[in-house]
């Protein structure tokens, strides 16, 4: 059975590594990108089921990535969860308007993040395994 595939976009390699461990333990496959440009190319190549996106990124920040995703026929249906150190009061509304599904400020609670990932992935995902 295939597992849901999540693309992690963050310029901090430590955070990417930590999220990978956390998500794999919860039966998700992960792929990674470290900047805005490669986020789009990896998304096109890997066709992930969900994207976890940082806002402060080199080579096209999170908002640029959101806009490119929205404008791409192939990618516009992929749900995006924003995970950023930025202040929700100034950024949350903007990211949701730009097409993101949810907003989390770092450091985010793991269980809340996993709950939203579970709720956001298309229903009846054939491979959705039980959470650990």
């Amino acid at each position, binding site marked *: 059975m295939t597992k849901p595939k999540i693309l992690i976009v963050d310029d901090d390699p430590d955070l990417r590594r*930590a999220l990978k461990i956390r998500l794999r333990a919860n039966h998700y496959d992960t792929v990674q990108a470290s900047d805005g440009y490669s986020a789009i190319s990896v998304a096109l190549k890997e066709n992930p089921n969900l994207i976890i996106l940082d806002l402060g990124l080199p080579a096209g920040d999170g908002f640029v990535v959101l806009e490119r995703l929205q404008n791409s026929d192939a990618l516009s249906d992929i749900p995006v969860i924003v995970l950023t150190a930025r202040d929700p009061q100034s950024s949350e509304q903007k990211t949701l308007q730009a097409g993101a599904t949810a*907003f989390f400020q770092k*450091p985010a609670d793991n269980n809340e993040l996993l709950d939203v990932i579970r709720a956001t992935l298309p229903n009846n995902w054939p491979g959705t395994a039980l959470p650990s």
Partner: protein
Amino acid sequence: MNNGHTHVLLIEDNPGDADLVRLRLVEGESTVDVSCVDRLADGLAAMAKQPPSVVLLDLNLPDSRGADTFRKVLDQAPGVPVVILSGQDDEALAMKALHQGVQDYLVKGDITSTHLERVMRYAIERQALLRSLEMSRRQQLEFKNQFLSHVSHELRTPLTSIHQFVTILLDGLAGEINPEQRYHLQTVLNSVHQLRAMIGDLLEATRAESGKLRVEPRCITIADLIQQAISMMAATAKERRVGLEVGLDSRIPFVYADPDRVLQVLINLIDNGIKFTPPEGSVLVKACLVNADPNMVYISVADTGCGISPEARTLIFERLYQDPNSAHNNRSGLGLGLFIAKELVELQGGKIWVASEVGNGSTFSFTLPLYSLAKLLFPVVVYEGQLRDAMVLVKVELTPLASVSRSAWKEVCQQSLETLRRCVYLDKDLVLPVTGNVGFSETFFVAASTDLERAEIMMKRIREQLETRGGLKASGMLKVSASAVPLPGMEEGKTLEDRVQALADCISAMAMSFLGSKPPEVGTETQVQPS
């Protein structure tokens, strides 16, 4: 004087005095041009058209007298220097004017041209100095705020890394850990949580200082919020072996406040209470009504801790204050919690204070306004001392698609509410405060002073606006409907207030019955099929 040209606006109704001042002005050597008006209204109009370099102002004019005159001028143009032309007998008033922002005064009949010129020059210079001081104060504040918000952002990145890897270890994702290792890691995690809270406080305090804290009052049940706060703090209390008790007056009606912000204040006070109470002590949270103050609910958090000295009590709500004599070394905060709590309570129309005795515990109390629809409705439904002649209740229902996350939906609802407020006429329509905590599907009501036929226009506008903004189209469904509100009769002995109250009761009952016919919302996973 000021790069050559000085434009003087002389507001003086006595032609003799006006001519005299004009003469003295022209006698001086500066290039001065004078425009003279004899009424305050004309003066204010001239200032609005072109701000003068300085205003010479007589206080007793045909359309304004005394202190009112200079207050109106200062209100209209706070940046323009004002010099008062005062009579021999009202120097006291002139002194008062100086305290309130007027630059100087001249006593009529005692004016020479050199004197007049010097007074005007100083007035202009002083005003410019004040302006630049105020500007640099604002720049500094802005710089400090940007700095703090930058710092708190940068601190979050390494903190996130620590948080992630500690929880990876704790959850056994990197292999089994023994009980002692678990205990140590749990200590690290607690510190991470503390640090995260401090960073949040730092940002909140910055916002409070620059007036950017937001509150969104709704119609809420205070008992539910207190219970929620208690259950959130139960684990901490148990860990420190401090009892946590509740005393609720069952008669408390709805409260008009922001539930998230009230919870924030409650958590802060309860957390402080637990922190400063020794094991086997207790913290009691109470809510009650007070006869002497019928429009407010009184909420208190009392502990049996070490108490607060009188000196500390006066400073405790100040930013960064920490009691240096505090018996416990419990300084695990920045000293911002009570400052933020005070700002939040005051923003919601309440006040906060503390009563305490050293060694005998402390009681922190705060008030919040009770919800009164009649009070909110009054300015909207009363026009020229009469009740308006038609009233419609418009219902706006938002239902989320099943795939939408809760946080995204909450934001969509908030956006939609703001859009909705822009769709109505502020002087004759009222968007009713939202009832309860944010649920999954959301219903807003608008009480509109219009008839059903004309309400159609408003409903069309609401539909169009909501569907084009705030991401509603992608995440939920919208239904807008309306019903007429029966107006209360004009029975003998009924005051206008009684009738507004009757109208408010009727609208409340209608809104409640609409809500009652809906499926349960909070915390259920009801799937809604898109139509």
